[in-house]
């Protein structure tokens, strides 16, 4: 390694894979972990201390549904004591009265609440959970009542892409200061459900117009982060800000990952916290070093002037579509198989017209593999 190793800035802690919702695009792996493989409170607290020592400034507490962890207040407190900025990423259902307030008291800094549809029926269809929509709105109100800033996360796909204007109005009415219009990333569960979720090109173009106009109109009122859809892109995203560059993910059992889908790259093996110290994993893990910086790149990335802008894009998407984790992300127009993205979009539209693509494989723990 010739490039200097930078300390990580942020960490996504998947505290559990348990979740009341069954969204068919969940970013958790298809092989979900059961509760008995989750790290205990003391181990998470030790991991958070090591993360702060290493330079982590922000921790995103996610899942599954992180509020299912009864020790969440204790975990937030441990992070707050170290001055780490804490962000709770929640589905906002089954949260008892008083819990949000208790988390705020423990030092929580921010809440990101997912909403699956701008109408109750869409939200219920996607999450496969009745009554969830009303609970989410109540959670949003409690977040604001506790004085916490709120981000609404709206995962976008064929079944709700026309609701983007209503998502914007909903987020405003809930007092959100940020809205993520996040087009689904086709990894894991979303890859299984790609034909059922992929929007049409026309809908994506309308969405871009709506979001761009709203960003201008709402400047200084609400920030809209637009996570654009890779399958319609010209250039790839700098996935995770570059592999193992300034962020990492920890799975419920303590497996430390460069991104939440990294285990789809079967040639890599990953270390668990506890067996090795976090700093050792960050610096020395073969999986972390596999795609760090630019030395691993092939053409056209290797000589591309954008190589340190997008870092070659998403390794997992390269694996899923090009069959080679070191290939250029096919979202890039310079990828030799970029045209395949358009074909996959067209295939999904054909499937939709023939009503073959509307059956979801819902996220279920019954797909779980027993912990080894």
């Amino acid at each position, binding site marked *: 390694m010739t490039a200097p190793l930078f*300390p990580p*800035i*942020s960490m996504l802690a998947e505290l559990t894979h348990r979740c009341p919702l069954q969204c068919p695009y969940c970013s958790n792996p298809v092989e979900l972990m059961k509760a008995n493989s989750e790290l205990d409170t003391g181990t998470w607290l030790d991991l958070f201390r090591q993360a702060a020592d*290493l*330079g982590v*400034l*922000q921790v*995103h507490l996610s899942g599954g549904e992180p509020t299912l962890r009864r020790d969440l207040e204790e975990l937030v407190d441990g992070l707050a004591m170290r*001055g780490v*900025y804490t*962000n709770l990423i929640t589905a906002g259902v089954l949260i008892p009265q008083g819990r949000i307030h208790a988390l705020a008291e423990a030092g929580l*800094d*921010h809440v*990101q609440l997912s909403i699956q549809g701008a109408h109750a029926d869409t939200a219920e269809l996607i999450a496969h959970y009745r009554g969830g929509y009303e609970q989410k709105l109540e959670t949003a109100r409690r977040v604001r009542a506790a*004085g*916490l*800033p709120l*981000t609404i996360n709206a995962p976008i796909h064929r079944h709700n892409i026309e609701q983007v204007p209503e998502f914007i109005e909903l987020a*405003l*009415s809930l007092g959100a*200061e*940020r809205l993520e219009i996040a087009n689904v990333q086709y990894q894991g569960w979303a890859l299984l459900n790609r034909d059922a979720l992929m929007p049409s090109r026309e809908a994506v173009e309308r969405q871009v117009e709506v979001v761009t106009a709203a960003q201008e109109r709402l*400047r*200084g*009122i*609400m*920030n809209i*982060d637009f996570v654009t859809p890779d399958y319609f892109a010209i250039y790839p995203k700098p996935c995770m800000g570059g592999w193992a560059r300034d962020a990492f993910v920890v799975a419920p059992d303590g497996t430390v990952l460069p991104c939440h889908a990294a285990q789809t790259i079967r040639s890599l093996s990953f270390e668990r916290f506890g067996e090795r110290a976090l700093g050792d994993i960050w610096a020395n893990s073969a999986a972390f070093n596999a795609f760090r910086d630019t030395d691993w790149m092939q053409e056209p990335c290797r000589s591309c002037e954008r190589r340190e802008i997008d870092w070659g894009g998403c390794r997992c998407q390269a694996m899923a579509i090009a069959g080679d984790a070191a290939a250029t992300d096919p979202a890039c127009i310079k990828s030799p198989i970029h045209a395949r993205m358009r074909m996959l979009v067209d295939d999904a539209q054909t499937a939709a017209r023939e009503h073959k693509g509307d059956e979801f494989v819902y996220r279920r723990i019954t797909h779980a593999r027993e912990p080894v």
Partner: protein
Amino acid sequence: MIMMSRPERSIITRLSMPSLPDHVRIQFDPIRQAWAVLSPERVFWPNDVSLDILRHCDGQTTVAAIITALAGEYDASEDDVAADVVEFLQEWSDKLLVKP
């Protein structure tokens, strides 16, 4: 539909008394030996001039007084400082990182 007053974009004037919202924190990072601004989902690394402006954002000092103070600190004319300060604060207000 419930009628509610729509929030509006805040415009920074010389009479504004800017402050950081509760959920935006400036803290010194001993690992990187630099000041970081922590905000929802983002970390910023402001330069020295930006930090000097942010340090005056205590909610009790007007933009006019911040300009006077910075002109003194930099030994520059208020006119030279004013445009930069207002532009910076408007940009950060638009990102919801500064409360006017």
